[in-house]
């Protein structure tokens, strides 16, 4: 009997149990509490009044309309830019292709609110470009604030998702498919619409889902550049934090609505992709050819303009970080003052970002590897359950996750609010899916006989995992960990709810500096963040020898 129990409690079963406890405490319980809370009146009784209030008052349901308007427009625009860009870059020889690809990756990996803030610097009320046109031509540049601004920032920030996804799919398309079409007399636009588009459609949809989710859940951009054009995350945040006595139950109800929407979209997208996806493998990838004349000119123009616009925020931020400032104004001359002030006043936020980020990253890597392995190789009800539950935060907006954690852990025995732990836990929960997904993908490519060989040579399953499987998983794990790491250090929407004075991170500090119109320090901090991102990317390229990032 005891022997049998011992047999049942092998390494992987113990791991499974530990993981279930972890997710039960830090994900299922908080989300469950949130869900219940949204149906609770202030006296604790069951009520639907929060939902009723939401759909009755225009001020509230308008935010939902706004969110939909923004996300739908952004998704369409991102596809309209991303797909042609990917097609041109894959089929034509483009000058500076390597640099363009790196720039696109950098622009997608930088925090979205930096985009908002630097477009304000350029086109805002006292923006450089606005002032220039005002002073020299007496032209008022259309307002950047509100819907238009949000759209601009999101589109430029998010089209790379579509680009990277579709480029990936085009790389897998064998050129013999194109040649077959051509030999049958199908060329040009017709080839594109009858062959290329249908084949990449599932990929476009997958990318579109990412764009949709990101723009729906993003808090920083509409908060900074929306100015009264309130979207759901902004509403949730302000209802929760509101100075006139926030209402946690109402915020919970809003969060429930958000989760419901994202879940429906996620399931719908999965359904469509599953029904319409093709297995492709390419022995002979499409070779870019040199275009000539007007076609070549416009292809280059299109690509350079788009990528130029996408990278402007980064350039602006880096440039202005070296400018002299007086109050909220930039003045003539270069200086390192902004950096000095950052180090004096906000050094802790830099340190916090790195320390919390690294702790979270280590745990993410360990959990990601264990969960993906268990769910692929030790498939049973429990491991599949963990897999599903761990992927769920992927579709939970950051501000919602922040609120759930705060509500769940603000009293003993699990009093975590205000501590560094709660930030780290939110980082882990929120960014684990990246590492999990790419780890799982690589396990599918590993032959199980590799592990069996190690076991037959006398290594226990646990030692086999450490000696063989874990090593072979590394490329996939690192690719996911890179994304987890970069999104962790750029995380704003949940941190803004969970931080306290001692635990603020760089993105939180940037956000509050922008709100205080202290643009110099904000720029310096953003530059530090961007440099961290780029350096991480370079280290990753060096470690894996690849030049690609898979999202």
């Amino acid at each position: 009997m005891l022997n049998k129990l011992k047999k049942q409690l092998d390494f992987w079963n113990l791991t499974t149990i530990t993981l279930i406890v972890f997710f039960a405490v830090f994900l299922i319980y908080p989300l469950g509490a949130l869900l219940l809370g949204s149906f609770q009146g202030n006296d604790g009784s069951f009520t639907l009044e929060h939902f009723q209030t939401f759909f009755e008052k225009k001020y509230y349901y308008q935010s939902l309309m706004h969110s939909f308007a923004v996300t739908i427009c952004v998704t369409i625009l991102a596809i309209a830019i991303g797909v042609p860009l990917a097609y041109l870059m894959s089929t034509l020889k483009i000058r500076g292709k390597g640099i363009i690809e790196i720039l696109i990756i950098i622009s997608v990996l930088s925090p979205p609110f930096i985009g908002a803030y630097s477009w304000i610097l350029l086109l805002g009320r006292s923006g450089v470009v606005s002032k220039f046109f005002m002073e020299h031509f007496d032209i008022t540049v259309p307002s950047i604030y509100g819907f238009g601004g949000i759209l601009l920032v999101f589109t430029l920030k998010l089209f790379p998702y579509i680009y990277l996804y579709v480029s990936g799919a085009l790389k897998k398309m064998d050129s013999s498919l194109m040649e077959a079409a051509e030999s049958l007399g199908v060329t040009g636009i017709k080839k594109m619409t009858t062959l290329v588009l249908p084949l990449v459609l599932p990929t476009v949809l997958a990318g579109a889902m990412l764009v949709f989710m990101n723009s729906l859940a993003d808090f920083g951009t509409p908060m900074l550049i929306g100015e009264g054009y309130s979207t759901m995350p902004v509403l949730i945040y302000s209802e929760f934090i509101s100075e006139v006595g926030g209402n946690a139950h109402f915020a919970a109800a809003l969060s429930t609505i958000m989760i419901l929407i994202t879940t429906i979209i996620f399931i719908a997208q999965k359904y469509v992709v599953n029904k319409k996806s093709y297995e492709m493998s390419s022995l002979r990838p499409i070779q870019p050819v040199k275009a000539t004349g007007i076609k070549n000119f416009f292809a280059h123009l299109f690509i350079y303009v788009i990528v130029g616009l996408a990278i402007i925020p980064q350039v602006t931020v880096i440039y202005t970080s070296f400018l002299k400032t007086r109050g909220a104004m930039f003045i003539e001359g270069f200086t390192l003052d902004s950096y000095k002030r950052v180090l004096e006043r906000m050094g802790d936020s830099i340190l916090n970002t790195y320390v919390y980020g690294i702790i979270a990253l280590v745990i993410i890597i360990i959990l990601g590897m264990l969960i993906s392995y268990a769910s692929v190789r030790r498939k049973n009800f429990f491991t599949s359950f963990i897999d599903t539950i761990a992927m769920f935060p992927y579709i939970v907006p950051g501000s919602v996750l922040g609120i759930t954690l705060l509500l769940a852990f603000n009293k003993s025995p699990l009093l975590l609010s205000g501590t560094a732990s709660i930030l780290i836990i939110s980082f882990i929960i929120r960014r684990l899916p990246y590492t999990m997904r790419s780890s799982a993908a690589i396990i599918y490519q590993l032959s199980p006989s590799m592990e069996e060989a190690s076991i037959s040579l006398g290594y226990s399953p646990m030692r086999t995992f450490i000696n063989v499987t874990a090593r072979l998983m590394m490329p996939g794990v690192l690719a996911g960990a890179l994304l987890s790491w970069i999104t962790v250090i750029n995380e704003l929407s949940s941190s803004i709810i969970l931080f306290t004075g001692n635990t603020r991170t760089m993105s939180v500090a940037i956000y509050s500096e922008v709100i205080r119109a202290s643009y110099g320090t904000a720029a310096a901090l953003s530059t530090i963040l961007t440099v961290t991102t780029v350096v991480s990317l370079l280290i990753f390229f060096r470690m894996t020898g690849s030049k690609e990032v898979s999202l």
Partner: protein
Amino acid sequence: MSTTIQFEQVRKDYGKNTVISNLNLVIKPGELFTLLGPSGCGKTTLLRMIAGFHSIDGGSISFDEQSINDIPAHKRNIGMVFQNYAIFPHMTVYNNVKYGLKNRKISKEEMINRLDDIIETVKITEYKDRLPNRLSGGQQQRVALARAIVIHPKVLLMDEPLSNLDAKLRIDMRRAISEIQKSIDITTVYVTHDQEEALAISDRIAVMKDGFIQQVGYPDTIYLRPFNTFVATFIGHSNLFQGAIEKENGVTYVRVTKDYRVAIDTLINEVQDKQNVMIAIRPEEFALSEKQEGIRATVKHRNFLGKYINYELILEDGQSIEFTQDTNLRNRFLEVGGVVYLEAITEKINVYTADGEKSLISGVTRYVE
């Protein structure tokens, strides 16, 4: 001293399906024993049960009378060679071979000696410092073999080890495996679906189908005296005829077709006059009759294969049979459309019960020790 493997009443279930049941077998010390059968016959499942990657759901498997049922895979002390080699891509050839030894309590000196020995034996000295991705299939196969046997396992298991190699290399490796296996005298279980490979390499063969052992025997007994018509048709090709026994004046005949019967003295005594039987005759077990006697057939198709010529012939009742003729300048080629008469080489033909389940040749048994 090498190991005896004993299977007693072994059963394997996949969910509600029993894929192997009541399997009994003894594999002798030092023997190269092959499990041969079409895909899905249970041969790989059985191998993986010995390795410990599949559970044993009934009965027992023992090494030298010690049951291994409850021993986890990593403590069974087996060496395994995989179909896709499973060389660790992140280790050099040398470290791949060393991997299993590192885990054992042996002196450093002995470890180095053993490594040098085995690397010499399987002839991989010149690329021992390379990473495996730069090795050919045959070289990887040698590394896999070295890695499996350097730990001095009780039993060596090989799962279709040659199926990813090209035809010529397969024959070279076949010989190498056979030589190495004999030189270190290790009980080996070898799985393949390739009958030629099985015949060439094995000491004994078990032919499996649907989870049951159809016949266990030496390569020549399996080929020359198949126990049932499945074995007769799976190993090489056999033409099957539905015929009958005829006993006249103390002589036993087998009637093959309406017009052709042969006197035969290899049958067991229990056969009855008029008993319906199944007759198996291989394409090379016919001879052309000079006297226009025997089975009359029309040539439908001729296939020149180099070493021999393969003909498809049609009998008068419409049955189609195969006949092969050695390529020999003195042999005349048969023309398509021509009529020929075939006689069977009587001592070679096999006779079965009418359902084809059991041989009626005297001395043929399902199990040969």
